[in-house]
């Protein structure tokens, strides 16, 4: 299982060689671009909790319309599943996702179909447990801690991939 750093690596590697170089040398420029989108394309949507806001980026449309059909539409918004508990972690994740997604959106160099990163997958696995502790207590009880991602934990997504937005 790649750790957070490795998975950032994956994300970067998914860019073309040219883009990779660009990222390496001109991080400042990237910041500029990302920053621009952050405002113009409502990248700051990341800071709100309104799912519609996520869909400010058409590349999020699929998940948005999927979410509208999902079992969770009335019980969980995007951020409930895609940001970790705790203010700091929450805003770190939002900021970094917000920035990188803005960056990739603008430079149009992300892998399609979009795939959740390892780091965000763990965030989501935690989110499930956060709300479903009662239901899942038993099946996690005897696991060595059952931290999402560790070998002794069950992956919720493996069986419940569709709960957030039908794939």
């Amino acid at each position, binding site marked *: 299982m790649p750790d957070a750093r490795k998975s950032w690596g994956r994300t970067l590697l998914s860019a073309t060689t040219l883009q990779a170089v660009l990222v390496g040398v001109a991080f400042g420029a990237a910041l500029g*671009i990302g920053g*621009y989108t952050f405002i*113009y*394309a409502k990248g700051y949507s990341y800071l709100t909790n309104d799912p519609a806001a996520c869909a400010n980026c*058409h590349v999020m449309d699929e998940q948005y319309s999927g979410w509208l059909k999902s079992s969770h539409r009335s019980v969980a918004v995007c951020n409930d599943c895609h940001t970790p508990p705790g203010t700091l972690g929450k805003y770190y994740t939002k900021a970094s996702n917000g920035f990188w997604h803005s960056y990739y959106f*603008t430079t149009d160099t992300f892998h*399609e*179909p979009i*795939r959740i990163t390892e780091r965000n997958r763990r965030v989501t696995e935690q989110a499930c447990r956060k709300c479903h502790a009662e239901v899942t207590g038993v099946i996690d009880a005897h696991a060595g801690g059952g931290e999402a991602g560790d070998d002794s934990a069950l992956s919720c997504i493996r069986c419940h991939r569709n709960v957030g937005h039908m*794939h």
Partner: protein
Amino acid sequence: LVNIMERKQEARNPFYRVVELDDETDDPEVWGKNFPLQYDGYRRTVDQVRTRYGGSEAEPRTPTQADPRSVVAQSRLEEDPRLKTMWAGYAFSKDFREERGHAYMLEDQTFTERQQVTQQPGTCIHCHGSVYVPYKRAGGGDLMRGFEVMNQMKFGEARKLVSHPVSCIDCHDPTSMQLRVTRPGFIEGIRALANSDDPVPQMPSVERWRADGRKDVYDVNRMASRQEMRAFVCGQCHVEYYFKGPEKRLTYPWQKGLKIEQIMAYYDEVGHKDWEHLDSGAPVLKAQHPEFEMWNQGIHARSGVACADCHMPYVRHGAMKISDHHVRSPLLNINNACQTCHKWPEEELRLRVETIQGRTHRMRGLAMDALVQLIADIKVAREQGRTDAELQQARDFQRRAQFYLDFVEAENSTGFHAGQEAVRILGESINFSRQGQVALRGGVVVQAAHATP
């Protein structure tokens, strides 16, 4: 930064109508003015890239008078000489190549050596060119009539009436852009299938028509759902076929159903043979590209996944998603073709396909060895002067073994479209070939193989 502005625009107007298209416009370049992205993809079917078992390899050749092509696809006969034995006495033993992109369909058909060794009928053109407009012209506005007229021409004459490979108008209604079936062969074939009692849960509209009391006829363009059409437009050509009677009417053998047993039974019933085998004298059949039939036996069809989902997946151009008109092996485009439904890494998906294809390829090899040995045995027995009566049983086994084997050999996914069914068919083929060998030697009750519970 312009990037995003553009994108927000694109989102609003997907395309501009530059020219008016009507039911006579068969030139794709004209359609391309309205739909430049689809046209670009369409033109890229000239690319030749090889995958483990598919795609195609560009083989340079020196053009000749008879055949001006400077590039062809690799010869399957050279890859596996056993094919020559299987087809001994038939045009396919002279020239059979890996198929390649749509852009080549017209020239490959026109210049294959198979044209020189036999006089082919106009029927051939049905699946190798944009015949919708020519058929209607030849039929004085009546598609079916034109079909019949051109079937009975010599290939050369019919060829002159056609100027493009499969084109936009063959799959699309020029005004609504909706998919439509334009091929008489499929319109009649699917109707015959609908009239049969073969269950086809993977074709909801057919089941619905049957449930509604089979009123008048099943009309594919009126009744099929959009998702079904995403496979039917391909089924217009990627099917098993034969030329019926002196009118050389193109016919898809689906009267009893789409499974191999049912197709075999149909050919036995009408007493059809493609040729008499040179070495063995058996009345044999040639199976051809039954992608549609095999796909129908697979889990994807059963799950409502159409040809276009994998071979023409949606690709994003800025804000809009369009169907990739660069029709090709999905293994050259795994992320768009597969990952929308399967979250596995590309390499893993490739390995899964190759596992299925590898098993199929191995069994194909065993079945081919068995068949070649049976043919050799019959040849010997014949030379030893055995009578037709004595050879009859072995020849019948060859007829079956060969058609079953060829059904998978000619199917171009190397088993992927229906992995278990492909291997089952090959297993039955082996059983036929070996029983033929035993029969020649006498002393075993061969019928028992059918006495299975």
